[in-house]
């Protein structure tokens, strides 16, 4: 187990390095002049040269990459003399457009994104998995049909359509919810909850549809297995078999999928935040992309990759914990 974990972690670090190299190449070697891109259209040749020098863009690409990596570990200082800006230890770059380290943009926007993702994940696990399990147990009933039909449509529904529908209905027409946004739960928990409810419902219900389909299929598959019949034949009650035997076997792939969804959650958050105008990391990255604010985009891509890779390892580990049939080697 420990050996497997170490091997897995080494591979994960290698993957992270490879992703960072490729991303770095895309952002700093592909554009003809990253300094021009970052500086903007109103920059003079002098400004561009200055930006280039401050960012170290006049250095060879390998040196630039090494500097970037060093910045993450030890922090770095951009430029020299009066123009010098310091960027503290986990330095993911410096946004010259907004004149602040990328980390402070992240610190400002990550809480909103985390709120959305965590809330939606809770909904998708409770509603989605619950719905799937119940409809598997009540297979063929009206409830099952309704659940299957709803989740079928839900799985084809998109955030950018469902979001505006809910927004129109609940905010603009019925006025039951305030316009979504982010208020710190520490400052005003009630407001935080009310403003977050719409993003949660949107993202949560759409993901619920996918999880309902998955859990229904898994549960049906498990219920048809011999060990379930054996347990019933031993004289265990129906619910004991469902809760103790079938659920445990059916839950493994659901946990895997949930983990991978959590790892890739930033992709969904981008659209949710844009639909509802929540100032989270997703929206910040779309803005950065539109302004070609490369350091911010680069940091977002790396962060997103980091989560995917970490969740992959976590899921693999969880797998062996939940399902004793899985042997890691």
């Amino acid at each position, binding site marked *: 187990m420990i050996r497997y974990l170490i091997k897995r972690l080494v591979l994960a670090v290698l993957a992270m390095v490879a992703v960072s190299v490729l*991303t770095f190449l895309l952002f700093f070697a592909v554009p003809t002049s990253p300094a021009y891109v970052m500086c903007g259209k109103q920059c003079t040749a002098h400004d561009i040269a200055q930006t280039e020098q401050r960012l170290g863009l006049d250095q060879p690409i390998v040196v630039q990459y090494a500097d970037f990596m060093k910045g993450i570990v030890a922090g770095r200082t951009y430029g020299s003399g009066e123009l010098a800006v310091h960027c503290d230890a986990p330095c993911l770059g410096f946004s010259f457009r907004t004149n602040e380290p990328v980390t402070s943009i992240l610190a400002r926007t990550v809480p909103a994104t985390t709120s959305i993702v965590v809330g939606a994940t809770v909904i998708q696990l409770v509603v989605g998995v619950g719905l799937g399990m119940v409809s598997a147990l009540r297979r063929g009933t009206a409830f099952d049909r309704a659940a299957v039909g709803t989740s079928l449509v839900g*799985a084809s529904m*998109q955030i950018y359509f469902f979001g*505006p529908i809910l927004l129109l209905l609940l905010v603009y027409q019925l006025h039951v919810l305030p316009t979504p946004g982010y208020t710190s739960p520490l400052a005003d928990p009630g407001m935080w909850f009310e403003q977050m409810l719409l993003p949660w419902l949107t993202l949560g219900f759409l993901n619920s549809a996918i999880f309902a389909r998955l859990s229904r299929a898994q549960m049906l598959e498990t219920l048809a297995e011999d060990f379930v019949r054996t347990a019933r034949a031993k004289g265990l009650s129906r619910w004991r078999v469902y809760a103790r035997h079938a659920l445990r076997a059916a839950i493994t792939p659901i946990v895997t999928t949930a983990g991978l969804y959590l790892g890739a959650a930033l992709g969904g958050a981008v*659209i949710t935040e844009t639909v509802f105008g929540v100032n989270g990391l997703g929206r910040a990255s*779309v803005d950065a992309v539109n302004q070609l604010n490369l350091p911010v985009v680069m940091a977002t891509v790396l962060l997103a*990759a980091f989560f995917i890779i970490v969740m992959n390892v976590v899921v693999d580990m969880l797998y062996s914990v939940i399902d004793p049939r899985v042997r890691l080697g």
Partner: protein
Amino acid sequence: MTQTPAGPHDYAEAPAGGLAVGEAPLGEPGEEVVAAGGKAIVGRSPGQLAWIRLKRDRVALVSGIVLVVMFILAIAAPLISKLYGANATDQHSDLLDTSGYPLGYLGGISGSHWLGLEPQLGRDVLMQLIYGMRTSLVIAFVSAIITVAIGIIIGIIAGYAGGVVDSILNWVIDLVLAFPFFIFCLAAIPVVTDAVYGSRGDVSALFRVGLIIGVFACFSWTYPARLVRGQVLSLREREFVEAARAAGAGMGHILFRQLLPNIWAPILVVFSLNVPSFITGEAALSFLNIGVVEPTPDLGRMINNGTSFLQTDPFYTMVSGATILILVLAFNLFGDSVRDALDPKSSR
């Protein structure tokens, strides 16, 4: 994978094994045996069986018809535009009120503009939808074809060659899977556009479409590749491959004439599920203003434009959203039916 309790229609097919009971003989050459019930038993290939199952599936029928209608609309868009009397780009500003909203009800529905007009610009919504579908379908289909083609080639090579080649390709697949697909598309498209066009301004629509297809293909070939690799691994030790090898067949022959025909079914399924996911992916990019650029009509961008008028003219967002939903739902349902038809044992 174990089998779920089979539904009633699965039981009808259960004794199949190449044979189907009932149904009038389709005029196929082959042995006809009279079964106990007096009905003829006809030998049929797995492909024919799948086709029969698909034809019996009502969901497949309905979603298939919807798809065919949408295809025809998209292909015949210029013709429809001529018959209908409006195109996707003309601005009918005379039909808008002073603040730019269409006159009349439900976004300005009228005899000459069946689904009303776009707020502010006054373009015909129906024609924008039809041309938008065309954009969507072209991008999704071309991306899916390229994705599956790359997947097949890499998968076959990895599976058949094995050893070091397989390990390297597997590592590349793992690496590509570690990329945050959507975020990376989002980031790569403007950067590459900028690298090619720089400050020259006007980006050609074709370039942007090509770029979207390219990025989609770059990051989506991994799934079909894995699938094909797995299939090839299990097939390559089978007798018929050995026989071909013994008969002196070259590698190309074995790969593409012996192995490939045996793995079409899963490839078809992957393809049919790839298309809707590219449709939604492209619409999502355009929704974020990073996809197809004006004036090429696009469904995702229509929704994005519509959200600014959500309070004043919600109809515009609703029609474009509903079009994407119907398109994606029809593809997903049809894809599921294709899978069920090709592999009746599979469960959802």
